C-alpha cells in the first residue's frame, strides 16, 4: 500500500469514526459538523473531476449545487402539502427519487453550459461558467413561487427508506455513503481509458486529437458528471440545513468549492475530503474566535499555493502524477 492509499483510508476512517463517537457522547452538533464536511467533500469531489483531472477551472459549480438544493427544497415543500409537482408529477419526499431528479436536472443544465463554455479556454472558460451560474442565481432570486431572495425552507427533512433522517447519525451515514460511492466512481473513472484521455486532454489537446480522440466530447462528459456529483451534494446540503437558499448558487460558493479542492490537493482522489475537513474545522475553530476568520483562511490558502501545491494530500503523501 502506498502512502496516499494509507492516508485516504485514515481520512475515511476518521470521518466515519468522529461523528459515531460524538453521537454516542450525545453531541449532535459535531455530528452535524461531520455531515457538513461529508457534503462539502462530495461537492468538491464533483468539481475535482472537472478541475483536478480535466484541468477545467469551473467557476460556476455553485449553480449545480444550488439546483440540487432547490430540487430537495421543492420536493419537500410539495410533499409536505401533498401538492403535485409541475407537469403533474407526483410529489415525494424519498431521497433516492430526489437525487435522481437532481442528477438529471444538473446533467440537463450542465450539457448546454458545458457545450458552450468548453469552446473557450483559460480565463474565458472561468468567466463564462461564472456568467452561467450568475444567471441561474438571479433566476432563483427572482422566483417568488419558491421563496425568491428569502430561499425555501424545508420543514421536514426528506426521508430515506429504512432510516430516520431526523436522526443526526442516520443522516450523516447517508451522506457518508453517497460520498464514498462518489469517490469510488471517481477512482474508477480516473483509471479508465476515459480518465486517461481526460488527463491527456488537460496536458495537450492537440496531441490527443492527433491520436484520434476528440477532446471536446471527453471534457463535456467529465463536466456533466462533475455537475451531477456537485448537484447531489446540493440536495443533501439543503436537507442538512433544512433550507435551500439562493446563496448556494452565488459565486462565493463556486469559489469555496475551488478553495476546497486546492486546499486538499488538486486531482487527488481524497483531496476534496482533506480539503473539506480542513476548511470546516478552520471555519469552526477560527469562526469561534473572530468573525473575520476568512482572513486566516486566505493566509492558509496563500501558504498552500506557495509552499504546498499538492495541498494537504500532497503534503502528506508526496507528489503524485498530477503536478
Amino acid at each position, binding site marked *: 500500500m502506498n502512502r496516499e492509499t494509507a492516508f485516504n483510508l485514515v481520512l475515511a476512517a476518521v470521518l466515519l469514526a468522529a461523528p459515531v463517537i460524538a453521537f454516542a457522547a450525545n453531541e449532535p452538533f459535531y455530528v452535524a459538523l461531520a455531515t457538513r464536511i461529508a457534503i462539502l467533500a462530495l461537492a468538491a469531489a464533483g468539481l475535482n473531476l472537472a478541475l483536478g483531472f480535466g484541468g477545467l477551472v469551473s467557476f460556476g459549480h455553485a449553480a449545480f449545487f444550488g439546483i440540487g438544493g432547490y430540487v430537495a427544497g421543492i420536493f419537500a415543500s410539495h410533499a409536505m402539502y401533498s401538492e403535485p409537482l409541475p407537469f403533474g408529477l407526483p410529489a415525494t419526499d424519498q431521497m433516492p427519487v430526489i437525487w435522481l431528479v437532481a442528477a438529471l436536472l444538473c446533467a440537463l443544465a450542465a450539457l448546454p453550459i458545458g457545450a458552450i463554455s468548453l469552446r473557450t479556454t483559460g480565463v474565458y472558460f472561468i468567466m463564462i461558467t461564472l456568467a452561467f451560474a450568475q444567471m441561474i442565481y438571479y433566476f432563483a432570486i427572482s422566483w417568488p413561487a419558491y421563496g425568491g431572495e428569502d430561499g425555501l425552507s424545508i420543514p421536514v427533512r426528506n426521508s430515506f427508506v429504512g432510516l430516520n433522517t431526523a436522526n443526526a447519525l442516520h443522516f450523516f451515514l447517508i451522506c457518508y455513503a453517497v460520498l464514498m460511492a462518489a469517490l469510488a466512481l471517481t477512482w474508477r473513472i480516473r483509471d479508465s481509458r476515459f480518465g486517461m484521455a481526460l488527463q*491527456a486532454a488537460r*496536458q495537450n489537446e492537440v496531441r490527443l486529437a492527433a491520436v484520434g480522440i476528440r477532446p471536446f466530447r471527453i471534457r463535456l462528459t467529465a463536466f456533466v458528471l462533475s455537475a451531477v456529483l456537485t448537484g447531489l451534494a446540493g440536495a443533501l446540503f439543503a436537507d442538512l440545513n433544512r433550507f435551500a437558499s439562493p446563496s448556494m448558487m452565488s459565486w462565493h460558493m463556486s469559489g469555496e468549492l475551488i478553495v476546497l479542492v486546492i486546499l486538499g490537493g488538486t486531482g487527488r482522489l481524497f483531496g476534496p475530503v482533506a480539503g473539506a475537513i480542513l476548511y470546516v474545522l478552520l471555519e469552526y475553530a477560527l469562526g469561534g474566535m473572530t468573525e473575520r476568520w476568512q482572513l486566516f483562511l486566505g493566509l492558509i490558502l496563500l501558504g498552500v499555493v506557495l509552499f504546498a501545491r499538492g495541498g494537504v494530500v500532497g503534503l502528506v503523501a508526496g507528489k503524485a502524477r498530477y503536478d
Partner: protein
Amino acid sequence: MTLLEVSGIETFYGKSQALFGVELEVEEGEVVTLMGRNGMGKTTTIRSICGLNRPRTGRIAFAGTDLSRLPPHRIAQLGIGLVPEGRRCFPNLTVRENLIVSARPGKWTLDSVEALFPRLGERFGQYANTLSGGEQQMLAIGRALMTNPRLVILDEATEGLAPVIRDDIWAAIAKLKREGEAILLVDKTIDEILAVADRCVVLEKGKTVWRGKPGEFAADLQNRYLGL
C-alpha cells in the same frame, strides 16, 4: 490503391506562406521519405496532412477520402498515426496509459509493442516524463502503432538521440517496413533514410522539386537539395 495523395497544397501561417505546392504519394506498404533542408516545409506538410494546419488550396486524400474538411481526430481515426516531432508523449500518464489511451483494435497490442521495444516493457508503470529521450521516442512510436494506423508518419524520429538509440529506432523502422506498414518518414540522416526508403520526395522552399527512387538520388542531387 494510393494510400495517401497530396497534390498542390499551399499552407499558410497567418499571412506567411509556408507551402507553395507540395506533391506527394504513399502507396500501401511503402516507405516514402520527405527530405529537404530546415525550413523547407517538411513539418508543415505533415501538419497539413494531419489537419493541424489547413492548406488553403490543393487536395489531400487518404484511401480515397478527402481530408480537407475533417478535424484532426477524424483524420487520425481514418488510420493516420502521427509520431510528432519532439517526442510528444503525455507526461502525466504512465507508459502503459500512454499506449492504451488511444488504442484501437488491430494487430498492434501492448504485447507486440513490447516485442518491438523491450525497453518500454520494462517501464510500463513509469510516468512518461521520467523516461529518457530515446525511450520517449519509442513510446511515441508505440502510441501511434497502438492506434493500428494504415499509415505511420514519423517526423524527425531520431533527432537529438544518442547514436546507439538511433540504431535501435532505425532497426524498429526497418522491422515495421518488413511487416508491411506504410510509412511517411522525415529525417536528416541520409544514409539510413536511403537504406529504408522505397521512394524519396524532396522539398525546397515549400515545393516538391524532386521525386524518385533512393538509388537515383545521386551525390550531386544530395548536394544541391540537402547541402551535403
